[in-house]
């Protein structure tokens, strides 16, 4: 009985889709566009998150010491602070070597070796999270023997605030797009319902259950949602693949490398697919509800 019922509903959905194929195509296209934008935001958010983590994992507080500093005592005091993930002592000679390496030409600093070295001894401190860095830097700066601290404070604050702002913005835009897409599917299904209103009335008189009447429309909406999502995922996937390949090849900064972890990408694309299908289904259910009273 259920198989017959399902076959009937599928047949009705296919007939209805082919009857309203232009509107169905437009709705599919609109869902594809909406989800592609939504997907773009999601991928952006995932990548910003990765960049944040990359920056975070490499963000350090440089603690410059004065000449009278009691290095072992200071090291112990810093290590005891909450939120410290690592602590490394760099004496002034090693500091100069590292600086030279970062410039890419150690020969440039040859004249500054020995007593001419202008760099002080220092600690390199890492926090367990980027948000803790400003507070840790403030605490360390107050310890005796500390000349100054540097952690790129503005960069940290900017990244935190931009990332928060981007997340809120993408959630708001995504919600708007999702509502728009649901409305579009709803309009397509409503047209199908209006075209089939006489049939619905007859079916009700014949004793068809509400779900029997609903299901073909629901399948129609789900099919539109699914097709739209597939189009958007194909476009999004190809665009992301090309952009990611370009960034990996050209970007000089390791932390700007895009997300290529299949697990993370599958989560984004899978969520989009689910969302598209759910949007199609919701649009259908909202449209058919008021036509069921016969």
């Amino acid at each position: 009985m259920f198989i017959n019922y399902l076959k009937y509903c599928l047949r009705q959905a296919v007939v209805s889709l082919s009857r309203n194929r232009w509107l169905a195509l437009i709705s599919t296209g609109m869902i594809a566009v909406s989800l592609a934008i939504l997907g773009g935001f999601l991928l952006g958010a995932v990548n910003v998150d990765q960049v944040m983590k990359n920056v975070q994992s490499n963000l350090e507080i440089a603690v410059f010491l004065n000449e009278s500093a009691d290095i072992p005592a200071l090291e112990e005091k810093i290590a005891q602070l909450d939120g410290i993930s690592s602590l490394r002592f760099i004496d002034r000679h090693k500091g100069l070597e590292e600086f030279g390496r970062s410039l890419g030409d150690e020969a440039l600093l040859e004249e500054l070796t020995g007593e001419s070295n202008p760099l002080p001894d220092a600690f390199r401190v890492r926090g367990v999270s980027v948000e803790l860095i400003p507070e840790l830097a403030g605490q360390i700066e107050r310890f005796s023997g500390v000349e100054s601290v540097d952690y790129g404070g503005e960069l940290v604050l900017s990244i935190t605030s931009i990332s928060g702002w981007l997340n809120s913005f993408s959630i708001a835009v995504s919600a708007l797009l999702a509502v728009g897409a649901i409305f579009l599917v709803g309009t397509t299904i409503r047209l199908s319902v209006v075209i089939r209103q006489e049939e619905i009335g007859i079916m009700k008189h014949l004793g068809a259950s509400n779900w029997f009447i609903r299901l073909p429309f629901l399948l129609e909406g789900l099919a539109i949602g699914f097709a739209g999502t597939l189009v958007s995922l194909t476009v999004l996937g190809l665009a992301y693949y090309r952009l990611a390949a370009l960034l990996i090849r050209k970007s000089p900064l390791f932390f700007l490398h895009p997300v290529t972890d299949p697990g993370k990408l599958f989560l984004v694309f899978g969520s989009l697919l689910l969302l598209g299908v759910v949007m199609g289904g919701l649009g259908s259910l909202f449209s058919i509800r008021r036509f069921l009273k016969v």
Partner: protein
Amino acid sequence: MLYMPIWKEVPLLIRMEAVSKIYKTGGTPALSDLDLQIGRGEFVFLVGPSGAGKTTLIKLISREEMPTSGRIDFLERDTAAYREPELLRHRRRMGLVFQDYRLLKSKTIYENVAMALEVIGRPSREIRELVPSALERVGLLEKENSFPSELSGGEQQRAGIARAIVRKPLLILADEPTGNVDRKTARGLMDLFETINSDGTTVIVATHAWDLVDRLQKRVITLEKGRITGDEQQGSYDHVH
């Protein structure tokens, strides 16, 4: 002669007690204080002028409408107490025939009749057996692949009747089934209803066709201004003014 309960021995199909229906608050009642019993296997004509309440009565029986007051029992069960599954069962136990046939233009006659079985999930094998049998009964088997637009009014109504009887219902409710066909065709349709009734199916026909009512000599319930003004076994159309 007003209705007398002379079919007490027949199990009741429909019992109405003090049923009134008002569509708009403060408006004229479509039906007023109706008491009525219809037994299983009866053939009943509902007659009366336009606006007398015939269609409203049919809608109340099919539970397309609910009474404003009073009670309607179908097989001893209060129809107002139906939940959705019972309402579906109620509708599946009856076949409706409309004046305008209500056939779907995009479907063949076979498909229109089959729809009555498809919507209640009957298996394809059963549909393949029952639909030709119903079409044969109304004399339309050779037109099963035609579309409604290719048939005459009488043939379309026969298809409507085939759709109503294909599920072997307890009750056929026909609202002005001969309203859109000529006299000769109308007589054929009424004969068809009589044949269906002779198999034990209760038939209720609302009609203006006085000659057909007089010819068949069945129970006639006369409605005027929402009230029963006549109820006769082997009645005629005489009461209607």
